[in-house]
């Protein structure tokens, strides 16, 4: 016998959840209250769905888009969107959003944490204590002062700005490189990363990975940074010429590096394992419950805005 419940229409808009089989993101429960979800490109609903939510780095290629003729929106769940064919989306009039500010504070926190760890040898000294060496060896080698260091931020977007704000409180000075100079920003601007490196003690890489920024940290930049230099990468592995960086670290041509991302995750150049002047992290700058809460808000806000024809919250912008 039909009940009143069964007669209520489902007004929830349709959203395709585009994910790799192994990749889970703890978002679905919240989305279901607002949207009707399906997750297979083979489903008949693929022809009419207008919005796609991309879970993690699942590729969105021209082929993917070919199977979604009504698609008008791709909602990303990361800050970086190098797994999305942005040019194709643009060509087809498909808007793309990213995680907006949801991750910025966590990633900025993490960049500062990595820098402190490298300069003050936190992880290396912790290993030293746990190995029982302190009573035998007395002193641990000295680290380096953070205060007064010249910080060069590569990509002064939402994350880069939060990094700058934090490091200023430690007595550091900040300069940056971005695709374009930002008129409202008071930090000194350098038109290219080489010049930024010449004038910095630390380079913090926070920019998006694009064709232009591939290997933006290369041998020339590392040389310009100098022997007292530190590299922190919380962007994408391919922003840094990893082979060159390894050489510089092994030869002691820079002071150290803090790396959350690598060119071929989860594979890491094994030379790094023997080094104390590098801090290695398994791509987890965003992995806190707070990030996912904030991400939920951004994703739902973007989808709701789209379906009510309002401006999107976090349309993807190049820095």
């Amino acid at each position, binding site marked *: 016998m039909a009940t009143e419940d069964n007669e209520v229409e489902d007004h929830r808009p349709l959203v395709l959840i585009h994910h790799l089989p192994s990749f889970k993101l703890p978002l679905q429960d919240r989305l279901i209250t607002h949207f009707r979800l399906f997750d297979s490109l083979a489903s008949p609903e693929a022809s009419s769905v207008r919005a796609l939510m991309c879970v993690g780095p699942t590729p969105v290629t021209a082929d993917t888009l070919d199977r979604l003729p009504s698609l008008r929106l791709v909602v990303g769940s990361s800050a970086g969107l190098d797994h999305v064919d942005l040019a194709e989306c643009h060509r087809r009039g498909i808007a793309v959003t990213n995680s907006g500010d949801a991750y910025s*504070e966590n990633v900025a926190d993490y960049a500062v*944490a*990595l820098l*402190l760890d490298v300069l003050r040898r936190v992880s290396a*000294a912790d290993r030293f*204590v746990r190995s029982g060496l302190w*009573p035998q060896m007395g002193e641990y080698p000295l680290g380096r002062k953070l205060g007064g260091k010249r910080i060069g931020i590569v990509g002064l977007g939402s994350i880069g700005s939060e990094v700058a704000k934090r490091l200023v409180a430690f007595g550091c000075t900040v300069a940056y490189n971005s695709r374009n100079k930002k008129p409202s920003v008071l930090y000194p601007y350098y038109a290219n990363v080489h010049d930024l490196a010449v004038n910095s003690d630390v380079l913090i890489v926070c920019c998006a990975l694009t064709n232009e920024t591939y290997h933006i940290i290369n041998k020339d930049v590392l040389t310009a940074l100098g022997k007292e230099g530190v590299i922190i990468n919380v962007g994408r592995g391919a922003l840094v010429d990893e082979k060159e960086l390894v050489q510089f670290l092994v030869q002691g041509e820079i002071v150290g590096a803090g790396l959350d991302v690598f060119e071929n995750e989860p*594979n890491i150049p094994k030379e790094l394992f023997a080094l104390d002047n590098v801090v290695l992290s*398994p791509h987890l700058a965003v992995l806190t419950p707070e990030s996912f809460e904030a991400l939920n808000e951004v994703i739902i806000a973007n989808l709701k805005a789209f379906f009510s024809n309002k401006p999107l919250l976090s349309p993807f912008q190049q820095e």
Partner: protein
Amino acid sequence: MESIDVLMLCPMISYLEQELDRRFNVLKLWTAPEKSQFIKDHSATIRAIAGDGGHGADAEMIEALPRLEIVSSFSVGVDKIDLEKCREKGIRVTYTPDVLTDEVADLAIGLIMAVLRRLCESDRYVRSGKWKKGDFKLTTKFTGKTVGIIGLGRIGMAIAKRAEAFNCPICYYSRTEKPDTKYKYYPSVLELASNCEILVVACSLTAETRHIVNREVMNALGPKGVLINIGRGPHIDEPELVSALVEGRLGGAGLDVYEHEPEVPEELFGLENVVLLPHVGTATVETRKAMADLVVGNLEAHFSNKPLLTPLV
């Protein structure tokens, strides 16, 4: 000045030893087979002591050196010096404030982040090859967490300033409330611990502050709370700390100091919610040099009858 005998209590950075050697006749206590005999042998000529945070002049040593005029410490912590005795006998005491404030505050934040974001553990995870088998777990955000500071002196204030850049609300406990700060004051460490998520020990070690962080305080901080010690080991009841961590009554700890350095309770080695550092609060090339310059500068000033640079007594 080369004829002035300075008793150096322990090895220190070679820069400091060299600079002292150039100006004074340095007697190296740690090279003596029998320390009290060594002191007796030189008691008629020792006019100054150079010590550090872990090695100072107690009443016995002061009594044994009738010509002692000044104790110059390579530290800001002076709990190993009998200050009362020095005052009584008119002996000057100098230390190294300010030049190390930023350094120690930086490390406090570094410890907080390393504990909350499990930096050391995740670095181990990568180095052991575990990343190939699966992702690391979630960790906890730092931005926005309430930070409670015990002791709002130079170092405490510097920690507060840095934590504010992470949008952390700041609260504190001090012997007396500070009228010109905007941070929230709690009249007891217990109340402070009950109202913050990260508790940082940044006060000096005195008879009153020994074991200021005890079992009750740690329970109040709780299973999600994090305790950071950049003060002195005896600020925390160490056996209670170990059991609080092992039993999960305390969420985590970042320690730079211990009750019996360099001994560290071995139960801590197996814990992943703990970061253990070998007393490196001031351990950078830049800061140790600045501290050394103060030690030497103070001794030089004293023996040239000039005003001391950084006197405490």
